[in-house]
């Protein structure tokens, strides 16, 4: 059965164009609102997120000095002490950046240090002063969760 409503008519096309206009308008509003929000309320950097986590857990931290490998990381680095074990937390900008940092440390560290004190979780590299316990590892892992992704 064929009725007149099946025939393409101008009203249908007009409404589709209205629909496209509404969709595009909503898209533009969301884009503008998103960038405005970013400008007015900038997101904390990944380093700041790690620092905030450490502050919330009353764990002091400091800037990294005298470690050119850590200082070369795209997202920054810090030094802290997790349950008595000092650790350098290095935030790579990508997995590739983190792999480079890990490789640079591996080049200058002893095999024992690489095996027991050097770790990488996606984009984050940890260099511990002593082999960490499971609890120390867990703490460092959770505080850097945002920076890993």
């Amino acid at each position, binding site marked *: 059965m064929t009725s007149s409503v*099946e*025939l393409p008519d101008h009203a249908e096309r007009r409404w*589709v164009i209205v629909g496209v206009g509404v969709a*595009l308008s909503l898209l533009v509003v969301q884009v503008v609102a998103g960038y405005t929000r970013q400008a007015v309320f900038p997101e904390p950097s990944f380093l700041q997120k790690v620092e905030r986590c450490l502050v919330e857990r009353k764990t002091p931290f400091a800037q990294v000095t005298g470690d050119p490998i850590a200082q070369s990381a795209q997202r920054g680095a810090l030094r802290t002490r997790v349950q008595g074990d000092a650790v350098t937390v290095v935030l790579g900008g990508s*997995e590739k950046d983190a792999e480079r940092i890990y490789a640079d440390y591996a080049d200058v560290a002893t095999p024992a240090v690489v095996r027991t004190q050097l770790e990488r979780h996606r984009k984050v590299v940890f260099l511990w002063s002593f082999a960490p316990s499971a609890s120390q590892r867990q703490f460092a892992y959770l505080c850097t969760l945002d920076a890993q992704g």
Partner: protein
Amino acid sequence: MAATPTPSAEGHTGGAGAVSARWAVLGSAAILVVLGVVTVRNAFTYPSLGGYDAQDYLTYAHDVVDGHLAAHGVGAYYTPPGYMALAGVAGELGEALDLRDPDHLGQLLNALAVLGTGVLVFGLARVLWPTRPVLCISAVGFFSFYPTVVKTAAMFHPEPLGMLITAAALYVLAQMVRRRGYSWRFAVPLGLLLGAGQLVRAWSIWVVVVAVVILGVAAYSEPTVRRAALRSLAIAVALAVLVPSPWYVHQATAYSNPVFDRPQSPSFLLLRRPLAFYVDAHFPDVVSHPWEGHFNDRFLPVLYAETWGDYFGIWRWGPSRRGQTDAIDAELVRQSELGLLPTALAFAGLVALLGLVVTRPREDIGRLVAVLPPLAAVASVLYLAVAYQTPDGDTIKGTYMLPGVPALALCFGFAFDALARRRAVGIVLGAALLASALATLPFLWW
């Protein structure tokens, strides 16, 4: 504006390159073959324990086969047993066939349900707009490459079967509206399907409301069929209530609520979330970081990211596969980008059909078959998200609006068909969408 082409008796629409009805059938069939290959293959490669709440559903299905429902208040006890019974029997068959994982046959059931729904999408498009082959093929294409459809098809989950039953009910409704045939021959199967849907997924109760509205509008706007339409409405509603009633009675007796007995906040529903939850798409994160942790408290971006990618880590990353990597992140970002054009077109089609329904209500009741389900499905997911909120946005899932996808595909097809009547626009849009579908294929292949 180009002149409006008049469809010929053979079904040519002219504008989009004279796609004939035969080519629409062949093209749709080819797309459905691809969908079939992908979903059947995924059913055997995706772990049966990998999907949403899979352990709960597997336990439930095994319990049903053993002759009893889920233990009191445990797991997915609030889910009707329809899919569990069929998947449980399929699992038994899998054991008899000595399959490595017999429950893959429960997943195969979903692959077949999705394939069947794809056929019904084509049927719906043909019934509602019989002289628009471009609409048919584009609706089938949208449905077949819609990631949440293919992802859920691989899982041990009741939603795909619910979607198939909903699509079948919409098909019967479309036939009734187009033929103006409001006899018991349509009303009985419609009522049985509406009832059966609730035995698979109680949330699909909105389909009953959709059917009531459509038959009610038909009765109101067409005096010559008013009595027949109202009679059909009464028959369909009676069956839709009768068929699932044993389940609802059981749930109401065993629990405080026959549908979902989880406690709710006493505050007014719409005030339970801030305004930003409803309206903020959290751009650019919805495209640049479409995975869990970036916008848990926003409805639109979680729904979008879960629909087009893998927000909750159930498909490309997470327990069922592996941790995130830069390559997976890049794939999810690409998925979010690829989803923009089809989503915008589907939305445009929905707005257009809604506008036509509102401004020309008596012209074509059939438009309601495409307009109402997506709106009702989104409203049901929104209700779930607001009424039963979780900190990680776990109640916001594209999977939950699966029964609305066939009609959303019709909206997409409607918009594409109208725009493609300008040949240049049709070629550019068609090429972009084809490229987008091909680019999505690796993501859909588990």
